[in-house]
């Protein structure tokens, strides 16, 4: 137990842990000390803005509450009881406002601006500044997604501290000094990376603003809807600001166990895919040999019914992994109970082997040793997990890429990101070998390929206990979602199927090869639930009015034609799944900040599926392909994110590059399995020897083991 000390603040007495910051100590007494630069998530306080000046008995000068900590017997006077402190606060606000433009009426921050709020409460009512204010070029697009207004900037250094101490990319810097100080990107390069948008939320004024939101809405016109991001398996908690039924902005909704208030740029800026030019709003049917035309929903459902019946129990469902549990269950119930077909292409392998090693993501930060395994960078597969690992390292943890280097740390966490994870079975096996089950602060994570792979597997299983018949021929393939529509294996299966129904958001993906395309919705348009990589059940809300009916509505109608009872409401559908998978938890109890409930009766040992046969590739290097963060059907449709799209590059370890005489920037040819691809090389200091890594979209038909040589030089 931490020692408790007695602190008096404005004649309130509180007992708080010794060393607690005075801002928090005041909060314990129910008092607010205003701050601008102070933000505990950014590391040690810096005391720069001087907004939190307080009087402390025994100290002649005013002190910044953010940098002072609770000591026994301390007597603190805030502006409420100390004229000196009030004068200090008033002075700080006067100085901040001396050069701050009076453009609140046209500033996007207006109405939700900490500077505005604190000025109303603590500031001077007028200005004594009668000289020209600092004027600077503005706004500066520090990237296609973020605009910087240096005149509004009050130099609290929150953004540079984020870049330095949270995302650790060092791209945002302060340039010049004194009154000439400005925030800039290093060498004026665009601010890139997975986490840049967080600075727009950290900024306490209208200096760093999301360009997408410029002049789009006012705080009093928007409805903020709490939901969960569906772009990756982390499931960051977000709020979506909605105006007139349209999503205008995505912000973090701090879930301290999952995301600590950070979200990635894909989750933040990717929402404009909702308004993609090729969004499908009417069902599309193949009418003659090569013709496609929009049809009514009634006609589409008739056609769907006809195709389902024609398949005679030989229906296969290919799922994307981005469906809600309710959508997947509704589809499963229709197909399994309505047509007696039980064959599914689930988006990925799922195992319950990990359930004995479940932890909230936040536990990574407290680990003493973290093994990041599997060769795919966490920033690409589950970005927020990357931030947790960085935080663990800053807290002193050893971060290794091989379990052999773990040592004998008390709190050990394993994370698997990449191929070979077998749905988590591999990392669960390692965890069992290390004896991590039931040990405090120890656990294992597996980064699935899709946002809701586990939930979909649960939903599919909950719809029926019957086994697939194992027939070879495919009467009807139902392709659910754009990720499945873009998958090569699904497309191959479609070639063999008698007929194909695709549920798709975008014209480019399924139109042309599916017999019937039914318009789909985005995770931002749905009510429902997801299970994230921790095994945490979370709630999605509709944050934009979809231009098309919800999947549950037409699935319920279609199901009734097959005598299958299905409610068109997420809450009722969830109840059926919950009965079998989530202990009967009601929809309304999932929670706005969902707790990690885990799965009941998780066994510490599950026989993992057999290892795939070892690759015998001789001299070559093992090719690891991955799906980059900024890829996929949604990102491809967001023009302002195109600058973040991956480069056609292959990464090599330092030793492998040296062995092959390859330097960063060289063109190299990768060959193997009868295919070859030429891309630029990048030497990586973090990649293991014997592995080459590249985004899947550039790998063509390469797989397994490859030979690498400089382009034009025979291997």
């Amino acid at each position, binding site marked *: 137990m931490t020692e408790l000390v007695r602190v008096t603040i404005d004649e309130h007495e509180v007992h708080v842990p010794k060393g607690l910051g005075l801002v928090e100590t005041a909060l314990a007494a129910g008092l607010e000390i205003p701050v601008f630069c102070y933000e505990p998530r950014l590391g040690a*306080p*810096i*005391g*720069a*803005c*001087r*907004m939190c*000046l307080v009087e402390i008995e025994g100290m002649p*000068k*005013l002190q*910044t509450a953010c*940098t*002072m900590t609770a000591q026994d017997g301390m007597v603190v006077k805030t502006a409420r009881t100390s004229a000196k402190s009030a*004068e*200090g606060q008033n*002075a*700080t606000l*006067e*100085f*901040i406002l*001396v*050069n701050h433009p009076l453009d609140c009426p046209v500033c996007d921050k207006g109405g939700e601006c900490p500077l505005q709020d604190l000025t109303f409460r603590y500031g001077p009512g007028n200005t*004594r*500044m009668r*000289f*020209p204010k*600092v*004027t*600077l*070029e503005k706004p500066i697009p520090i990237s296609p997604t973020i605009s910087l207004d240096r005149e509004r900037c*009050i*130099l609290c*250094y929150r953004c540079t501290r984020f870049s330095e101490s949270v995302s650790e990319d060092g791209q945002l810097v*302060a340039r*010049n*000094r*004194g*009154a*000439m*100080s400005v925030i800039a990107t290093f060498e004026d390069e665009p601010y890139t990376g997975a986490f840049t948008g967080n600075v727009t939320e950290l900024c306490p004024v209208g200096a760093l603003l999301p360009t997408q939101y410029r002049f789009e809405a006012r705080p009093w016109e928007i409805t903020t809807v709490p939901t969960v991001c569906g772009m990756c398996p982390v499931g960051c908690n977000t709020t979506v600001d909605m105006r007139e039924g349209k999503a205008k902005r995505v912000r973090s909704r701090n879930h301290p166990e999952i995301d600590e208030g950070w979200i990635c740029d894909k989750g933040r800026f990717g929402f404009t895919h909702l308004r993609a030019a090729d969004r499908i709003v009417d069902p599309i049917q193949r009418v003659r040999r090569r013709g496609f035309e929009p049809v009514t929903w009634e006609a589409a459902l008739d056609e769907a019914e006809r195709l389902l019946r024609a398949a005679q129990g030989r229906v296969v469902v290919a799922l994307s992994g981005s469906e809600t549990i309710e959508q997947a269950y509704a589809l499963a119930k229709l197909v399994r109970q309505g047509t007696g077909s039980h064959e599914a292409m689930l988006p990925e392998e799922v195992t319950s082997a990990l359930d004995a090693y479940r932890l909230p993501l936040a536990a990574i930060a407290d680990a003493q040793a973290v093994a990041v395994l599997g060769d795919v960078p966490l920033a690409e597969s589950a970005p927020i997990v990357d931030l947790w690992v960085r935080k663990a390292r800053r807290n002193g943890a050893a971060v290794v890429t091989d379990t052999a280097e773990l040592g004998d740390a008390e709190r050990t966490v394993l994370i698997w990101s990449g191929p070979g994870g077998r749905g988590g079975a591999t990392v669960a096996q390692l965890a069992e070998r290390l004896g991590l089950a039931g040990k405090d602060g120890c656990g294992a994570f597996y980064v699935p390929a899709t946002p809701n792979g586990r939930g979909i597997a649960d939903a599919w299983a909950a719809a029926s206990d019957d086994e697939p018949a194992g027939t070879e021929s495919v009467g009807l393939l139902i392709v659910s979602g754009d990720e499945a529509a873009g998958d090569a294996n699904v497309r191959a299966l479609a070639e063999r199927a008698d007929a194909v129904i695709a549920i798709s958001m975008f014209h480019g993906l399924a139109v042309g090869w599916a017999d019937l395309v039914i318009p789909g919705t985005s995770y931002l348009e749905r009510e429902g639930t997801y299970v994230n990589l921790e095994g945490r059940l979370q709630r999605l809300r509709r944050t934009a009015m979809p231009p098309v009916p919800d999947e549950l509505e037409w699935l319920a109608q279609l199901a009734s034609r097959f005598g299958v009872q299905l409610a068109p409401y997420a809450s009722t559908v969830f109840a059926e799944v919950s009965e079998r998978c989530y202990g009967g938890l009601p929809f309304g109890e999932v929670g706005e900040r969902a707790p990690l409930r885990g799965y009941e009766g998780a066994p510490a040992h599950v026989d993992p599926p057999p290892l795939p046969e070892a690759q015998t590739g001789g001299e070559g290097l093992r090719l690891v392909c991955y799906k980059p963060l900024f890829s996929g059907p949604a990102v491809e449709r967001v023009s302002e994110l195109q600058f973040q799209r991956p480069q056609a590059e292959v990464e090599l370890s330092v030793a492998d590059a040296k062995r092959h005489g390859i330097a960063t920037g060289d063109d190299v040819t990768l060959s193997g399995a009868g295919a070859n691809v030429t891309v630029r090389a990048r030497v990586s200091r973090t990649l293991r020897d014997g592995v080459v890594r590249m985004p899947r979209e550039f790998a063509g038909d390469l797989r397994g083991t490859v030979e690498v040589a400089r382009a034009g030089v025979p291997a």
Partner: protein
Amino acid sequence: MAETTIGFEPPAVVLAGAIEEPLTDLASYRAVGGYAQLEKARAMSPQDVTELLIQSNLRGRGGAFFPTGRKASFIPTPDKVAKPIYLTVNADESEPGTFKDREIMLRVPHRLLEGCLIAAYAIASKHVFIYIRGEYSREYEVLEAARVEAAGAGLMGDVTITIHRGAGAYICGEETALLESLEGKRGQPRSKPPFPAIQGLYASPTLINNVETITNVPKVLELGAQEYAQLGAPPDSTGTRVWCLSGNVARPGAYETPHGITARHLIYEIGGGLPEGRELKAVMIGGSSFPVMTPDELDTPLDANALGAVGLFIGSGVVTVIDDRTCAVQFALRVAQFYMHESCGKCTPCRVGTRWLVQFMQAVEDGTASENDFDTVLDVCDRIIGKCLCVLGDSAAMHVASWITKFRDEFRSHLEHGGCPFGADSSLANLFAPVDQHHHTPVPQEVPV
């Protein structure tokens, strides 16, 4: 570059033996007893060396006048801390009017190094960093040559001395900004606490002292604490000072005398007085960071307590003579410009306040200010003082405010005159910084309402 005049009134301590000829090489320094005190110190216990410094009441010569021995005693002993302990010497002499550390480094580099080694021994530090102002190239060369020679002679023991050159920022003379810069970061001060004695360089216990302070250390051992404590103006202003006499004076130079002489004595007896026919207007005493001294305060002994009694500071030993050709407003403006330029930009009152002060002073100089502005600017100074992260903002405000309060009539005459009555005749004319660098585009004079 013209050689600086060097002089002393006995007893010379810091510059002892180096008044006529510099003691740059080891042999000549040894000839005056050099490095004998290091040997003596190493035969004592580290605690006894610190105790000696406490007894001598040697105080910091960088400006704050903090007792050196006490500061050293704050450093935890090696058995109490798992981290290395560092000694850092502040040789970033940048206070306007200060040029004593450069003379010390040029004339008695080995005495500084001997002081470093003794102080390092006292706090069990194995690594000493000397952070030297980037512009001091000759000083760096002399000091580096001395370091190499001393190391070659085996005097270092297990201590490493690293001389690090700054990149030109006044703020890096502030101890925590110096540490940031030394760590390779942007030179901006840190919030205290934690104090450097607990978390200084690389988050390890660090003792930071000025060059002149450290150079005194061998002499404290040589003379003994009791005798040293009798020098100068005991009990608090013990020992000597190397005064930096400059400005409108016949013989400017670095003069070492015991503490407690008067500014009048220094200016008129040692410095030969003002140029023919000029009258004394003010003295920038202690540096530009402190209030200015008026002629009626000239007989105040240069002793921290006596100066403190009249609201002045001994600072870094600056005595800059200002005669009647200088416009008070121009002087205040020039100093304000200096601080605006050197403000690091980290904390709000200093970053914004220093620029605002320049704008006020410029308005006075141009004759466009009003009587009300004087009250506003004094209030703005009050709002800077004591509210900043470090003392840079306080310094700017204190100095500028002292000109306004002590020379209010001359300030007022600018308003009555519709501009500066001195104009181009002021000795500061043409010495101004380009004032407003803070506009991307020219600011329109008339803002439409």
